[in-house]
């Protein structure tokens, strides 16, 4: 009798407690706000040093770094920012640096598809960003009689894909000065840009 009465008293309390726990769990549970795409999908992946798998995750808003490694491929890192609101997609593709890596992609077409699309889209973004940073690109190459102005890889920042250097090929003693004059005329301060000179005049060409 005593037990039954006690139980009757405790039951609503336990029920209320259970509801509270469920509500707290619902509040605490956060759905995935970041989807990580990785090629190869089986590569070792670390988020801020902690091993994870590609796919959907809840990641605390802020700056983070992904790092992926796999034998046969160059290591890859990707820094990204998770905003406080909205979903984020992060793409990381490892380029093969050996026959082993190339063969792996050849044997895994889905991963290869993802790899190709990530790199193609990155290349396009890079191309657009380069033009935004240096609109002069849209007028290059500029070919003149004693010089020509081109653009290409930065030698100072070889690891920054967007970093661009101006390449000036000089064909006469006055070519360098004329090229600088042209850049200035176009509104670009030559001292603010990385310029690589290719001297074909001294070469006797």
């Amino acid at each position: 009798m005593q037990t039954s009465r006690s139980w009757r008293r405790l039951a609503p309390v336990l029920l209320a407690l259970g509801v509270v726990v469920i509500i707290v769990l619902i509040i605490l549970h956060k759905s995935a706000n970041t989807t990580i795409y990785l090629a190869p999908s089986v590569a070792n992946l670390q988020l801020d040093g902690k091993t994870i798998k590609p796919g959907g995750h809840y990641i605390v808003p802020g700056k983070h770094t992904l790092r992926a490694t796999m034998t046969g491929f160059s290591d890859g890192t990707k820094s990204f920012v998770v905003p406080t609101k909205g979903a984020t997609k992060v793409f990381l593709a490892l380029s093969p640096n050996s026959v082993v890596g190339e063969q792996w992609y050849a044997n895994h077409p889905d991963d290869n598809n993802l790899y190709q699309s990530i790199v193609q889209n990155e290349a396009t973004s890079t191309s657009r960003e380069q033009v935004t940073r240096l609109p002069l690109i849209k007028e290059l190459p500029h070919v003149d009689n004693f010089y020509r102005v081109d653009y290409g890889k930065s030698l100072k920042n070889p690891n920054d894909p967007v970093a661009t250097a101006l390449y000036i090929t000089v064909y006469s003693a006055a070519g360098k000065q004329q090229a600088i004059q042209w850049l200035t005329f176009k509104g670009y301060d030559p001292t603010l840009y990385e310029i690589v000179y290719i001297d074909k005049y001294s070469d006797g060409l």
Partner: protein
Amino acid sequence: MVTRCNWAVKARRGQAVALAFTALFAVGCLVTYARPAYAQLSQSQKDLFAEQIHYFNVEEDVCGSADAPSGTLSQNVPVAYRDLFTKAASAAKINPNYLAALFVTEHGNAWPNPAGPWATSPSGANGPFQFMPGTWDAYKTDGDGDGKTDVQNLADAAFSAAKLIVGNGGTSSTPLGNLTHPYTHTPLPFTYIAGAYNAGGGTMEQYTTPSSPVDAPGLSKETINYVKNVYYLVTTDFQHGNPSYGNALGTVIDNTGGAAGAPSPSGATTAGSCGVGAVQGSIVQTALNLAWDSSKPNQWRKADAKPSYQKTMPTVHGTDPPENYWSDCGRFVATVMRSSGVDKNYVLATTTSQRDYVKSHPELYDVMPASNTSQFAAGDILISSAHTYIYVGPQPDGSNSRSASWVGANEEFAGSPSSFVPSAYNANVAGDYIIARFKGGV
């Protein structure tokens, strides 16, 4: 007598029959020669012809006459040069008189012996068209189809000069201009282009405006006289040029084209217009023809592609390709290489396989690592481990390449502005790009 007459009649009949057969044979040969590749095309490719979509191949690109340049070359240009200049101008779709005017101006208003030798100026300009080394590097063209580009070769230099006129803004409808305001911009007259040929485009850009007189401050006397000379040559039908120049126009060195040791411009250019240079040209023209001339962010489906690409891509990659194929860079390059007829064995996909292909065919492709755009020539294919595009040279909209960017297998990039069907693109060499330059042999 009678017998002889009968024999004569029979002989005449026999000659007539033989003549008729010969004529039929000749017509047949001409028809066969005119469309040698047509019979080899697939039905869908024939449909493209039927619909008059410009389906570029070697024959049609430069050997055809679909877009005849404006102007007929003056009869006062020596025979030795007429055929060459007409063909070089035709390939570039420019007025041949402009090419001839530049040439004879470079030689002080005298028609030199086509065999040369050609002087080198103190500033380093050399060859029949007096190219500066840098300009030659940028515009050199194989005009005689020998697989080489030689600044001292008359045919190579003429085709290259025609290309330079186009590079400086010349088109089939470029007007001559006048000497009151010779440096107007819309339309760009030949007087401006001639100034750029002499002094460089940068100089003209810096020191002239659309309202500048011929002797705009900043221009050298040499350039001013050069522009005047070209103007007078064309307006007087090559009777005389600027009085400050010499005038030996009447004393043609060899007006028969038969000088000992003289090159044969006619034969040379016929080969050139359909040779390696023309093949490179058809890569460019095909790429331009199949891709939009503006960027198309986030337009990646078949319906977004240029109609010519919608028609051509399936002829290479099979009917009804998957939707995301339309934005694939490798498949675009393969479509250009195969449909142009330049390399019908070009690997269909992927970029890694395409890179391996060009590397393993040194008889077809020169391959070199890419560092900057001064290494590029129009028609080059740029390939990294996962991206590829075609460099087409500077275009009016500021782009210099044509490419596509893949939406991906799972359409993960469908909402990305970085996915697009073949369209305008600016070259970048970030990463492990190589340059693959077709050198003929297919």
